[in-house]
């Protein structure tokens, strides 16, 4: 569906050139939801704006549905954009127009027949759950409702692809969840492929199949959500994980505990989350695990559990216990102070 090939974007400013995006590669298959996560200034916003050429990449190709957008004429690009919906952090609705007109005006402008316009407004307002607000003005709506109108506006063009530029970043946690559910619903029911950028790990957790971590313009780590949540490699990725799950222990605590035993992080994936492995280990081997932190993260496509333990026992018993755990699909990591 979308292939971004070696996308780079350099802004030339007074203080020299700024490389906002460096050699980014992304591939989203039809029907999937991919997310790019990064801190502010990582270049993720520039990256997503390169997809519909709101930002012209300095180099690289943007291929959507087999067509390279960077080589299209102005008119063909406009035609292509009609099939790419986009939603924004700031909603970007017309303040002076009702909910109805906010959805209808763009439809009329792209040449949809009048009757069809009315039908589509009705249909998509129902999908986003705002059929009763048809005559309201944006100023009378809450943030979440405004974003729903923006989503309806994007859907009404019946796009194949939806780009989400920090769509939930201005919303409170509860509203964020309801918007995420809506995005999941339109992905499932309408089969719309979604590429989103965010700085919130819970957005990735709840709806993404595949994740890219971006830092200083480059994609530093990528993988399925399960891979990334169970086995993060880079400090930035780990920091993001810490925002939704208590994983980190202070180094003084680890050093103190290490005097009397091993300090380990066990990561449980898939089936291993369903078994009482820790209890079995203490029965089978002469070891005593003491749980320090524990959490479970529900992802869109699975569950990842994390337990940090202080493991007491004889050296050979601990080694045997650990290999038993690893045999049963648990990822064991020694924590350093």
């Amino acid at each position, binding site marked *: 569906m979308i292939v971004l090939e070696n996308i780079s974007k350099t802004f030339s400013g007074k203080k020299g050139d700024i490389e906002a995006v460096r050699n980014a590669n992304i591939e989203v298959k039809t029907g999937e939801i991919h997310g790019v996560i990064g801190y502010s200034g990582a270049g993720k916003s520039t990256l997503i704006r390169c997809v*519909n050429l*709101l930002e012209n990449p300095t180099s690289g190709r943007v291929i959507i549905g087999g067509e390279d957008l960077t080589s299209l004429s102005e008119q063909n*690009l*406009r*035609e*292509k*954009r*009609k099939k*790419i*919906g*986009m939603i*924004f952090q*700031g909603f*970007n*609705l*017309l*303040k*002076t*127009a009702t909910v109805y007109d906010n959805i209808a*005006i*763009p439809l009329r*402008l*792209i040449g949809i027949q009048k009757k069809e316009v009315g039908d589509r407004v009705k249909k998509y307002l129902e999908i986003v759950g705002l059929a009763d607000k048809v005559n309201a*003005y*944006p*100023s009378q709506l809450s943030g979440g409702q405004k974003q729903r109108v*923006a989503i309806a506006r994007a859907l009404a*063009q019946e796009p194949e692809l939806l*780009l989400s530029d920090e769509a939930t970043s201005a919303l409170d946690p509860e509203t964020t969840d309801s918007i995420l559910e809506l995005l999941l619903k339109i992905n499932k029911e309408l089969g719309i492929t979604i590429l989103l950028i965010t700085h919130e790990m819970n957005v990735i957790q709840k709806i993404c199949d595949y994740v890219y971590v971006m830092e200083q313009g480059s994609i530093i780590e990528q993988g399925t959500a399960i891979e990334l949540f169970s086995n993060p490699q880079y400090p930035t990725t780990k920091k993001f994980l810490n925002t939704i799950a208590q994983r980190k222990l202070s180094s003084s605590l680890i050093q103190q505990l290490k005097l009397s035993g091993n300090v380990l992080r066990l990561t449980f994936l898939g089936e291993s989350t369903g078994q009482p492995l820790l209890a079995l280990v203490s029965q089978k081997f002469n070891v005593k695990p003491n749980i320090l932190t524990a959490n479970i993260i529900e992802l869109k496509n699975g569950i990842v559990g994390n337990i940090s333990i202080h493991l007491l026992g004889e050296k050979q018993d601990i080694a045997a216990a650990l290999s038993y755990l690893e045999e049963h699909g648990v990822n064991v990591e020694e924590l350093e102070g």
Partner: protein
Amino acid sequence: MDRFQQFTDQWLPIIGKAVVETFQMVGVSLLFSILIGVPLGILVVLTRPGQSLHNKWVYGGLNLIINIIRSVPFIILLFFILPFTKFIVGTTIGVQGVIVPLVIYTAPYISRLIETALLEVDNGVLEAYKAMGIKTRQIIWNVMLREARPSLILGLTIATVGLIGATAMAGLVGAGGLGDLAYRFGHLRYEVDVMYATVLILIILVQTIQTIGNRLAARLKKD
């Protein structure tokens, strides 16, 4: 009562004529100023760096011209462009003769007010429409101008009031009008009643225009 009767008998025709002249001057020059100023304002916004038709030469040139004209006080402008006025309308006196300088004075002012109003429109909205594959021309009409309507109306109201002020100086080229009446009879001949009556009419006029402008803007503004 007699005094009032006497005053109206003597002055009403003169004041009436002055009102008509003021309306003529304001009406005609406002029309032409809008026809020139509004597109100019739109052009200044669109040719700005980062906007859809960005062109630093056009933008810089327009800015320079607007600033130069805006620097010249109206009373100087009135005489400074006499040859040009003569060339355009064939005369430099009367209502006709003053319309050219009034337009040249007001059009750049209106374009600045339009520019300010348009710049208030959230760039994100324009971008959202661009992302939907909508043409720049349609975005200007359906998004930019539409969203800026309340500020545009307020801007035009300010310009109209300013224009009424400028017509007061039109007397210098014999165009008449309320300002001229107040100046000639009220000030030079010291007919205080005439001055008061004229100023009162001007106050009512400005109040009315401002109120209409405010109401209209408030009705269009939805936030």
